[in-house]
């Protein structure tokens, strides 16, 4: 049962991170390889604020994503934007290079072992069939709120309509007078903010390590291939489901638990290449 909560938590991270990747991909047609490093930077940011400036976790939860979003916007404006005319694979290479730089720098500064982050919500509640730590419940709830909030913003607001239309046909949207390039910067910034927020949430769960993002992001890539990046809700559902699936595998057949998601990915590619919620292959 404890495994299932872990599964829910992992699922929450898969959902938030694949949501960020999907949103960025939809607007910019770029797979943000830096996402994992931005997640790690979010966690480190919160840790650094706590360690050096005694800024509490709850403030970091707001400050870190905002600062990261700002930095993300700068990256898009100064670097990514210049590459749009080129083959999209070059943008992928750029984000990969940035990821290496960020993780490498963190490793140089802080070594490869982890830094502990105190649990801001110690204790838990007894649910009868299991013990649910407060913090973990908070992570799941916060992730759900963020995911559903993003879904609502994209599917039900005017700005979201602009984003969805720009995903379909950015040039035409510009002819209506809508500054699509600025929307793209905003979208990237938002995606980065999401990754950083997930990082802050992740900090207290385990340790804060420079490598915490890279393994995770590769699994999230598999999640994204399975889900298909065709819909926001699809990414969210796929993320949570795969987290739970991973946990179940750990309970019933542990040796396969680290690879089960990749196996599902292989199966989905063979049967439905566009992904479960994808639109075109």
């Amino acid at each position: 049962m404890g495994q299932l909560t872990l599964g829910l938590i992992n699922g929450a991270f898969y959902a938030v991170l694949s949501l960020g990747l999907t949103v960025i991909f939809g607007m910019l047609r770029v797979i943000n390889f830096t996402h994992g490093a931005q997640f790690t930077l979010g966690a480190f940011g919160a840790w650094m604020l706590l360690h050096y400036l005694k800024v509490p976790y709850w403030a970091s939860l707001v400050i870190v994503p905002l600062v990261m979003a700002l930095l993300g916007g700068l990256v898009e404006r100064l670097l990514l934007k210049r590459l749009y005319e080129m083959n999209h694979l070059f943008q992928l290479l750029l984000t990969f290079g940035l990821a290496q730089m960020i993780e490498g720098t963190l490793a140089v500064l802080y070594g490869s072992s982890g830094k502990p982050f105190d649990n801001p919500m110690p204790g838990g509640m007894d649910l009868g069939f299991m013990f649910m730590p407060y913090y973990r419940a908070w992570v799941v709830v916060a992730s759900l709120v963020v995911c559903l909030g993003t879904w609502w913003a994209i599917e039900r607001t005017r700005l979201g309509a602009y984003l969805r239309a720009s995903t379909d046909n950015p040039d035409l949207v510009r002819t209506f007078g809508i500054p699509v390039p600025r929307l793209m910067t905003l979208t990237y910034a938002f995606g980065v903010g999401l990754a950083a927020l997930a990082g802050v949430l992740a900090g207290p769960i385990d340790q804060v390590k420079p490598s915490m993002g890279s393994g995770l992001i590769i699994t999230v890539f598999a999640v994204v291939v399975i889900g298909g990046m065709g819909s926001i809700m699809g990414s969210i559902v796929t993320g949570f489901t795969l987290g739970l699936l991973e946990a179940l595998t750990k309970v019933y057949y542990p040796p396969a638990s680290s690879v089960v998601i990749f196996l599902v990915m292989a199966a989905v590619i063979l049967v439905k290449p566009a992904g479960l919620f994808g639109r075109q292959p």
Partner: protein
Amino acid sequence: MRQYSKLIFAALALVLLVAPLLVYPIFATKLLCFALFAAAFNLLFGQAGLLSFGHALFFGGAAYCTGYALKTWGWNTEWAVLLGVVFATLAGVVVGVLSIRRQGIYFAMITLALAQMFYYFCVGAPFTGGDDGISAIPRRPVFGVIDITDDRTLYYVVAVTFFVAFALIYRIIYSPYGQVLRAIRDNEARAVSLGYAVDRYKLIAFVISAALAGLAGSLKVLVFRLASLVDVGWSTSGEVILMTLVGGIGTVFGPLVGAGFILTMQSYLQGYAQWVPVIQGLVFVVMVMLLPKGVVGEFMARVFKVQPAQVK
């Protein structure tokens, strides 16, 4: 470029011949292994336009096979290397069939995910030696007669292998098959409408690239006498991409130049090993933003006004 091919290969042969007099044989041998790895990767990326983020699977997987065969089964060198290549070829078919079903960015993600899956498999499997890897791998005489315990002799064996493999890649690039591959890369829809079995062409390119990457990994084992998890990790996949990018995607000699640059840089940074990923990341960023055609590519474009077989 084509007309001078005999001249070029003669020059290459000359360079290969004298290299051990100019640099340490071990370094030169290492360079050739990675140059081959990069050339194999470039065949897929530069000619077919397929960016694989998981080539370490073939490189490292073949390394493990060759290492294990040499150390634990006592095989002869040539058979152990062949085993590595066979593994890489078969793995290339499996990974290729899965990945080619999607294009572009999805293709890259799938190759990365599959390589990562293989990495986790290697972490857990007993015969890989886990974190320690397979070490102290013996260097048996090639064909029973050529003693490769001497670094210089090993260099020449690897150099000959490299030369042959490189010539093969060159032949492929400038063959009708290569032309079709580039046509598919530039405008797949058009190639389909012209009746080409596009997926089959891509798969063949993928498998050849995987096999040669495996050859590079197997040779590397002879040089270092070690096969480890790093060889199947995503940083190795990233490194070969970097070498190709620095040298020039789609150029013939780019991989050689790129491998030389990166390996030289790494040897200079010996004392600062932890800075290597940061600097490599920086090189990535600088290359993509300022010199996307790579050193050789930019040189060809500016000096000879030639556009190499480019990824557009």
